[in-house]
């Protein structure tokens, strides 16, 4: 039981709790307390020092929008944003109530009138923007994975194909998302023409930009992972006369999965960074748009609100990384390897 729990905590990245588990299981308290101090105390102390330095440093810089916000101002804005979110939900409720009243009034006058409830037209709150960004990054990332993994496997199995693709990959890999964005925007506008679109154009643009930029690490890692499989494994497959697809499915993928996940983890990290930039530049809904709107507002609380967004972006990026890291650990064969 204890070992299972520890394994689970290790896998999910909650290593902070491991000493606690060991403590409760009665393992040498002194050693465990030391561990706990190292794992929890040291980071907490570092965060406290950071907050203090931030507080001191921020007060020194005066911009035309006022003083650079310190931790307290930022915390205030967190509360303001929560309040705004709740206020917006109330407005939404009122919006629907008004519609129902209007519809009822219409039906009263004419029982045959067609009535529909229209979706809420208010602006997204900060928390809505977070969800939009998360959804966009996942769609873009998923698309990238669907494209990159098969191509990576095929390229990894064939030296010829790999040398054909390699120059293209190397050229497109370092391209900044901001360079792709205008092209993606124009192409999406030209090709995505429907009367009743399922997704907003802006959503497609952001997601595709994420795809284009997060494609490469997965592609390269998959190709390298596949090409560096122990040749014996491939030979065994040959001896067993497995066909191509069975070889890929039963031998190649299981053998290269740790590398694929390493690639996926880098891809998701890049995707998240790219998305914020793309949203900012293209004014697509999401956290990037929130930051840009606040910058444009130029009110006395704008900087604090942007800071809230910056921290949120960081924390979400951290969580995303932790999740993929857990997968990476789960799929890696060498459980003793230190993966950071």
């Amino acid at each position, binding site marked *: 039981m204890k070992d299972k729990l520890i394994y689970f905590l290790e896998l999910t990245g909650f290593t902070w709790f491991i000493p606690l588990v060991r403590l409760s299981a009665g393992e040498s308290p002194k050693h465990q307390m030391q561990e706990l101090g190292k794992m929890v105390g040291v980071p907490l102390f570092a965060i406290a020092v950071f907050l203090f330095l931030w507080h001191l440093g921020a007060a020194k810089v005066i911009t035309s929008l006022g003083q650079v916000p310190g931790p307290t101002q930022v915390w205030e804005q967190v509360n303001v944003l929560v309040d705004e979110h709740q206020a917006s939900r109330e407005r939404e409720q009122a919006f629907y109530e008004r519609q129902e009243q209007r519809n009822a009034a219409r039906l009263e006058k004419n029982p045959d009138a067609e009535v529909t409830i229209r*979706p809420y037209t208010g602006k997204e709150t900060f928390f809505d923007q977070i969800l939009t960004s998360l959804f966009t990054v996942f769609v873009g990332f998923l698309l990238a994975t669907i494209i990159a993994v098969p191509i990576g496997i095929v390229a990894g199995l064939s030296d010829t194909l790999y040398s054909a693709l390699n120059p293209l990959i190397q050229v497109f890999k370092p391209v900044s998302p901001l360079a792709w964005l205008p092209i993606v925007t124009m192409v999406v506008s030209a090709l995505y023409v429907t009367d009743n679109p399922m997704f907003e154009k802006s959503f497609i643009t952001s997601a595709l930009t994420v795809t284009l930029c997060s494609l490469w690490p997965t592609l390269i890692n998959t190709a390298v992972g596949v090409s560096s499989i122990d040749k014996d494994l491939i030979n065994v497959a040959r001896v067993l006369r497995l066909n191509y697809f069975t070889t890929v499915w039963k031998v190649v993928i299981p053998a290269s999965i740790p590398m694929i996940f390493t690639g996926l983890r880098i891809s998701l990290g890049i995707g998240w960074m790219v998305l914020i930039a793309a949203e900012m530049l293209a004014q697509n809904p999401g956290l990037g748009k929130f930051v840009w709107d606040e910058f444009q507002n130029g009110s006395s609380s704008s900087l604090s609100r942007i800071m809230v967004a910056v921290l949120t972006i960081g924390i979400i990026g951290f969580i995303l990384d932790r999740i993929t890291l857990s997968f990476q650990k789960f799929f890696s064969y060498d459980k003793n390897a230190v993966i950071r």
Partner: protein
Amino acid sequence: MRKQLSITRRALVKSLAAASLVLSSGMMSATSAYAAPGEIEKPELKFGFIKLTDMAPLAIAYEKFFFEDEGLYVTLEAQANWKVLLDGVIDGTLDGAHMLAGQPLGATIGFGTKADIITAFSMDLNGNGITVSNDIWAQMKPHVPIGEDGKPVHPISAKALKPVVDSYKAEGKSFNMGMVFPVSTHNYELRYWLAAGGIHPGYYAPHKGDVSGQLQADALLSVTPPPQMPATMEAGTIYGYCVGEPWNQQAVFKGIGVPVITDYEIWKNNPEKVFGVSKQWAEENPNTHIAVVKALIRAAHWLDENSNANRPEAVEILSQSRYVGADYEVIANSMTGTFEYEKGDKRAVPDFNVFFRYNATYPYYSDAVWYLTQMRRWGQIAEPKPDSWYMDIAKKVYRPDIYALAAKELIEEGKLPASAFPDFDTETGFKPVQTEFIDGIAYDGTKPNAYLQQFPIGLKGDAVVE
């Protein structure tokens, strides 16, 4: 009344009104005098705006449920800059937008992006200012006449700026100023002010592929999106700018610049923003278009009601981050009838933002013609054009006919009195000759070419930029 199933609330109200009229006059057999106005083609709409106080009619129409009263469910979305906004209206991502008066005209004649954009609603009068950086103001101030109260005498002419520009020229430095868009009101106002003070703002020469607008210029004008104006001036890229509110007052609050003149003093009660839609959209959604104009007229009326009594509430709404988002005090400064020039020099300008009075919402042909004359004056229209051409374009883009339909519905529904509007039977769409310009030159909208002849600086007659 054939479409019984999908009869709209509006149609219903109207037919009821018609019926009661018929009943009360005892003419039982008479058929309804009013044709059913038909239903709203597109109830869910998305409008774009730029973070400026003159987007207020849109925000008010939303917040005060004027849109919903017309059966419209509108989403308002802030746009990054005027180009993005115009492209949105052209490609259909936006159903309509808060636009610069010059944008529908510029698009129709093909200066910049070519597209047919029309407007049936003028959003406001005045509302802009010209701000210079603290440093330029310090150099200008010795040339500004000082009144008995020890404060500068307003309006300040660009003649006070001329020695500064000349000294920059003598040192071989370029004198850069910002405006918000090549066909913006701000561009023409800044040019008007500069030229009236003897500073040449430069020509455009689209026939030679030059759209920078800096040929033969003393002051070099370039484009900066409104919300970025203060930051760009603070960074030293430009020395001054012409922009709408709150970005002039923002400069005062931040202590980075001094507004020297408002556009009210350059041309009293000049038309400013319009509500633009693409011609195709207007043709496909005629009833929706009328409903939108109705809601906007009511919003504009609300903004000016009881001599600006609702303005503080409007400022409260605009200062929310989903609309303009600047601080309450900054927006309130100009919206509530005052304007702060130098820090502490706050003066009353009751008509700084006019949304409804003086028929502010009516799309006058003469306003369109004025913008066209300025496009010609600065070379955006490269070739000479006959007076009839100016009239044709104005009539193509400005649509008082649609406005009149909307206004008449409002009068009929009893929402606004007929006295709130021009007399639609006699209105020609041309304002009488206007003389309240900073340089005193008289403008008669029916004679554009004769008007242009009066300017010492600027293209006129057969002149073409060589």
